[in-house]
C-alpha cells in the first residue's frame, strides 16, 4: 500500500511538472525572458509550498505517517557547509538545466540527455561517499541516504 501511494505521488508530481513545463531544462536561462516568467515561477513555488503545508499540517497530531513507517528526518541545514552545498547544487542545476526530479520526468518523456544527467548524479554521490569515507572502493560499505 505504501509503495502504491508513493507511485501515485510520483505520477501526480510528474503530471504537475509536465503541465507546468517546469521540467524544461531551458527554464534556468529562458524564464526571465518569458513574459510573466518570473511571476509564474514565483507563484508556482508559492502554490507548491502552500498546498503542501496544508496537507503536511494534518500529520502534526500523528506520531507516524498515515500508512506506517517513520518520518524521514530532514538533513541539518545549519552552518556554512549546507549553504555552500546549496550553491553548488544550484550551479549544477543551472549548468545542466535539470534537478533529479525533473530529469526523471524528462527521461520518461524520452529526452536523451536526462538519463546521462541521472547517471552523473549517481556517480557524483558515489564519488562523494568515497571522498568522505562513507564508502571505500571495492567494499560493501553502505552510506546513509541523504
Amino acid at each position, binding site marked *: 500500500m505504501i509503495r502504491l501511494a508513493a507511485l501515485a505521488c*510520483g505520477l501526480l508530481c510528474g503530471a504537475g511538472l509536465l503541465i507546468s513545463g517546469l521540467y524544461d531544462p531551458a527554464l534556468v536561462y529562458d524564464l526571465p525572458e518569458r513574459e510573466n516568467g518570473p511571476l509564474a515561477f514565483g507563484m508556482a513555488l508559492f502554490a507548491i509550498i502552500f*498546498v503542501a503545508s496544508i496537507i503536511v499540517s494534518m500529520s502534526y497530531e500523528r506520531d507516524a505517517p498515515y500508512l506506517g513507517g517513520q518520518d524521514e528526518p*530532514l538533513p541539518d541545514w545549519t552552518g556554512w557547509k549546507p549553504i555552500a552545498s546549496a550553491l553548488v547544487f544550484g550551479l549544477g542545476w543551472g549548468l545542466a538545466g*535539470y*534537478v533529479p526530479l525533473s530529469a526523471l520526468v524528462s527521461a520518461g518523456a524520452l529526452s536523451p540527455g536526462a538519463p546521462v544527467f541521472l547517471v*552523473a548524479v549517481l*556517480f557524483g554521490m*558515489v564519488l562523494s561517499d568515497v571522498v568522505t569515507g562513507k564508502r571505500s572502493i571495492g567494499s560493501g560499505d553502505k552510506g546513509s541516504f541523504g
Partner: protein
Amino acid sequence: MDLFDNIVVVTVLGGVLIGVALGALTFLTGRTMSGSGMIGSLLGGAEGVAATSISFMAGLVMAALTMKSIGFAPQQVAETNLPLLIIGGLLVGISARMSGASLGGVLTGLTRRGPSSLVMLVTILAGATIGGILQVSFGGANAQ
C-alpha cells in the same frame, strides 16, 4: 485566449499538483519528496526506504506516458550539451550527498520548518541563476 495558454495559469496549476504530491507523500509515507534523496537511498540506507523510492521514481518516469494516454502531449524540451549535463549532474550528486541539499528536500523543509529551508532555497535559486548564465556563456543553450 485559451486559459491553458497562460503561463501563470499552467504553472500555478502544475504547482498545486506538485504541492499535493509533496504533501501526500509526507503525510502518507513520511518520505521527503527529494529526487536526489530518493536516488541516494538506492546506494543503501534504512530498510524499506529504497522500495518507496523506486515506486515514487517509477511514478515520475511513467508520468509522461500516462499524460500522453489521456491526450496531453509533453512539450519538446531543449537539453544542453553532453559535457554540461555531466558536469551539472556531478555537482548535483556531490552536493546532495554531502549535505542533503536538494530542491524537493528544501521545499519539504519549508512545510515543516522555516528559516534554514528558506535560506537554502534562496541559495539554490541564486546558484541556478549563476549556473544558467554560465550555461549560456558556455554555449549550452539550445532553446528555439
